[in-house]
């Protein structure tokens, strides 16, 4: 990779803030050495945003942690230098500093701050927000408590937390996810850092909140003239905020440059494939999503050493990406009717007191799903979409309402009234794909039992028949039959979700509810899963109820969409209508907040 020319910063002719050369961070595990960061060269400049783009496992987080020297055991920096230029012009090599040295501690927090993906776990749960900020300020600056408090309130105000004096006394759990991330940023800013490292700062947040946080970071960068290193897997985020981009793959930086040249004229095949596979809101709907692994020449993904910058994309596969044909559905042939469904959760109340109020997770929800279509339910976290899916399946009991399930050969059932044995029967024809393939597969069971469990229960097959059936299912889901006796721990995220899909299809269901089934996956794997789901839909005449917060997924896979907001369906329409002509103000807001993977279409800010 040494051939990639160093990017010359047109706007600042000063030396970079941080200069990384030949950095190698490796993990010495019992299964061998893992090269997490492999020979990385990188410059970070002040008053510029550098985005590190890469899939999970590409080593981007470890690289960022190496700068602050907070790589967990058994990881170690084995080679390379990290030259940091401090405010007075001196240069220190952070990679050579001893662990816990005075200098390192001063640099952390005072000069370089970091914010993490999950603010809840990075904030102390039992200390008030304000107190945590005051502590950080007083650790690095010689100020009185009162001054520190005033500064903390000012910071909270600056990061856009309303009523900061009041929130100073709040505990982290009293704040929403977005507020917590703001508080985290306030803390990171408390010592006026010269470089802010943000590790997936918005991945755990809703789109609307994400847009606000990104705006805030950009504003603060401008205001304080600091360098920002933003780590993300989201092309949209990069296009929205980056000035410089570095693309990481398998521990190496495969491409770097300013955002326009990378997006408009990518050189490396991996970057090209990544750009081609990014889901977009605009443009035509495509029949199949382009899949990085199909775009790249065979053998590339498995052996990163093969990734030479002058390889070509598989042209014919790009051409195959044809627009989708519009589907039509018979509106008389309904498979699911949800009528006035309510799910209420009581709040408050203990052993001796009645609950004081209810949260209406689902409030008078009614809709129909037609046979053969893909029905999408979109909403932010907390909008009640997961409660809705669970109430439909009767995983949790709805407060009132009807859920009628019309099957081909069996009588119609009202799930809200069904008894245990009826439910078991229904659950064979209505299956679920879970969000997190890691937690929905019991790590202690083998694949044959995980996938075959429902088959065994439904048809009480012998071991040999079961093996044959599960093998078929694995092949359908794009897995190998050799995987039968493995534990789920041996699979990657994408393969695990394939297992989840195989398991959902085991009993030949008519309706599949996919609850954020692709949200936890990398973009490239997401594309594979969506393609797989579509192929299976065509093959087995499936109906999907697709629950997601990701509008680009909706855009791609759904035929009709219901937008949920605070427990209610605020808009229900066809997909094309939704994107072309959103009616409800919330839908408009949601659509506007989605970052567009094109730096030329940046929102004015």
């Amino acid at each position, binding site marked *: 990779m040494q051939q990639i020319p160093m990017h010359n910063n047109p706007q600042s002719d000063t030396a970079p803030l941080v200069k990384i050369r030949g950095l190698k961070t490796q993990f010495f595990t019992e299964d061998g050495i893992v090269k997490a960061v492999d020979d990385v060269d990188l410059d970070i400049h002040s008053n510029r945003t550098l985005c590190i783009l890469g899939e999970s496992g590409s080593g981007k987080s*470890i690289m960022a942690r190496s700068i602050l020297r907070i790589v*967990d055991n058994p*990881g170690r920096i084995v080679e390379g230098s990290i030259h940091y230029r401090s405010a007075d012009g001196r240069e220190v090599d952070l990679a050579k500093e001893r662990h816990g040295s005075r200098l390192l501690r001063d640099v952390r927090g005072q000069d370089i701050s970091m914010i993490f993906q999950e603010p809840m776990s990075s904030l102390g749960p039992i200390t008030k927000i304000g107190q945590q900020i005051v502590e950080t300020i007083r650790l690095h600056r010689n100020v009185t408590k009162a001054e520190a408090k005033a500064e903390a309130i000012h910071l909270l105000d600056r990061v856009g937390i309303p009523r900061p004096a009041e929130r100073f006394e709040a505990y982290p759990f009293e704040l929403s996810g977005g507020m917590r991330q703001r508080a985290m940023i306030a803390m990171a800013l408390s010592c006026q850092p010269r470089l802010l490292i943000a590790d997936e700062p918005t991945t755990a947040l809703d789109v609307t909140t994400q847009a606000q946080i990104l705006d805030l970071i950009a504003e603060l960068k401008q205001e304080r003239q600091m360098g920002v290193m933003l780590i993300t897997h989201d092309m949209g985020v990069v296009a929205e905020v980056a000035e410089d981009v570095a693309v990481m793959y398998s521990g190496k930086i495969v491409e770097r440059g300013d955002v326009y040249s990378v997006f408009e004229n990518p050189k490396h095949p991996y970057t090209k494939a990544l750009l081609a596979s990014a889901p977009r809101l605009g443009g035509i709907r495509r029949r199949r999503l382009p899949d990085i692994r199909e775009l790249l020449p065979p053998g590339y993904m498995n052996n990163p050493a093969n990734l030479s910058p002058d390889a070509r994309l598989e042209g014919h596969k790009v051409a195959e990406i044809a627009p989708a044909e519009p589907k039509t559905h018979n509106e008389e042939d309904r498979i699911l009717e949800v009528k006035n469904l309510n799910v209420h959760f009581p709040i408050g109340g203990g052993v001796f007191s009645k609950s004081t109020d209810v949260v209406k997770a689902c409030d008078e929800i009614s809709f129909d799903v037609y046979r053969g279509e893909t029905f999408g339910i979109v909403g932010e976290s907390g909008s009640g979409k997961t409660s809705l899916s669970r109430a439909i399946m009767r995983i949790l009991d709805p407060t009132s309402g009807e859920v009628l399930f019309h099957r081909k050969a069996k009588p119609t059932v009202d799930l809200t009234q069904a008894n245990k044995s009826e439910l078991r029967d229904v659950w064979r024809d209505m299956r679920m794909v879970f969000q997190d393939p890691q937690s929905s597969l019991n790590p202690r069971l083998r694949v044959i039992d995980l996938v075959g*469990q429902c088959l065994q*229960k439904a048809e009480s097959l012998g071991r040999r028949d079961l093996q044959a059936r599960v093998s078929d299912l694995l092949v359908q889901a794009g897995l190998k039959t050799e995987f039968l006796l493995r534990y789920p721990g041996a699979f990657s995220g994408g393969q695990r979700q394939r297992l989840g899909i195989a398991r959902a299809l085991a009993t030949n269901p008519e309706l599949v509810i996919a609850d954020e089934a692709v949200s936890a996956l990398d973009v490239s794997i997401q594309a594979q899963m969506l393609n797989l789901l579509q192929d299976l839909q065509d093959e087995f005449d499936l109906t999907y109820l697709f629950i997601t917060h990701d509008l680009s997924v909706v855009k791609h896979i759904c035929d009709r969409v219901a937008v949920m907001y605070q427990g209610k369906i605020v808009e229900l329409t066809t997909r094309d209508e939704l994107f072309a002509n959103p009616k409800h103000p919330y839908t408009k807001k949601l659509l506007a907040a989605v970052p567009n993977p094109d730096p030329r279409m940046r929102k004015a800010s």
Partner: protein
Amino acid sequence: MTDTTQNLAPADAPEAPVVLGPWALIWRKFRKHKLAMFSLYIVGLIYLVAALGEFLAVQDPHKTSVRHTFQPPQGLHLFVKDEDGSTNFMLHAKGMKMELNTELRRRTFVEDESKIIPMGFFVKGHEYKLLGLVDSSTHFFGPKNPRDTVFIFGADRLGRDILSRVVVGTRVSMSIGLVGVAVSLVIGVILGGISGYYGGLADNLIQRLIEFIRSVPTIPLWMGLAAAIPLDWPPLRTYFVVTVIVSMIGWTSLAREVRGKFLSLRNEDFITAARLDGLSDWEIIMKHMVPSFSSHIIASLTLAVPLMILAETSLSFLGIGLQPPQVSWGTLLKEAQNIRSIIEAPWLLWSPGVAIVLAVLSLNFLGDGLRDAADPHAQ
């Protein structure tokens, strides 16, 4: 760190690596815990002693002898001098002569240099049943002449061999831990499981019951229960009732732990998925939930065994647990209850004392090691 290493693997490698099963991972982690590994060997050894018992006993633990009351421990020697002055190797003990010390008005024992008792391995001795099945009179170690007596750890007030009694008492003391823990396990898992899986009223009732039991001071409760055991019951039945009494308390902490695990597992996606697969509650509990926390249960059971052993010991020490002639470490300690025997025959205290400390410590270290190994978040 396992998470990180997994994430660092190429995103969608076609060949999944062969990954060790959960138990193999626990074992790999456990092996690194040196102290726990060492304790594992000690515990293994102690249970071996418990199983073989009489075979390892030097003498008949029940044989009394007036001439040897409170005899101090005899040393073992390796070399003997022949008549012609040459030194030969022979494992032996020196005989002890009882003398009456008129000044102190008590009996003292002095080593009798002339009386040499040859010792050997696999010697004939008193009759017993090996593992309760095979008739045998061979002993691992003892005087070559079955009529000789050797007291390596000294003798008690009836002239019985302490070493043999400690060895034979191992069985009762160590097994009462196991049996007690087994009883707690059954009660704890069932009640804790009901409490955690169903929640609501059942949970409330069981938790209040546990709180009630735990709020009662242990020793008076045991005393009250033990006082109800008729004195004329056969030793075996007493033994059984004592284990039940001991586990009356033991199950409560286990039940709480199981409940906690059930509560956290109940909302796991894979449990919901299993429900959707049509499994019944019982199948979900047995196939999905219990295997997920069995390693934790094993660890907490290992930590519960020493508590049981201590409970039995304290009961027997107070004279309300096992009754003589049953030999256990607790009943042996009871012999060392008065000041006189501690001053005159301290071996009555330290022989069973060391055995108890050794067993309890090694079980605790073993349990700690298991717990650390079973916890995926521990470093």
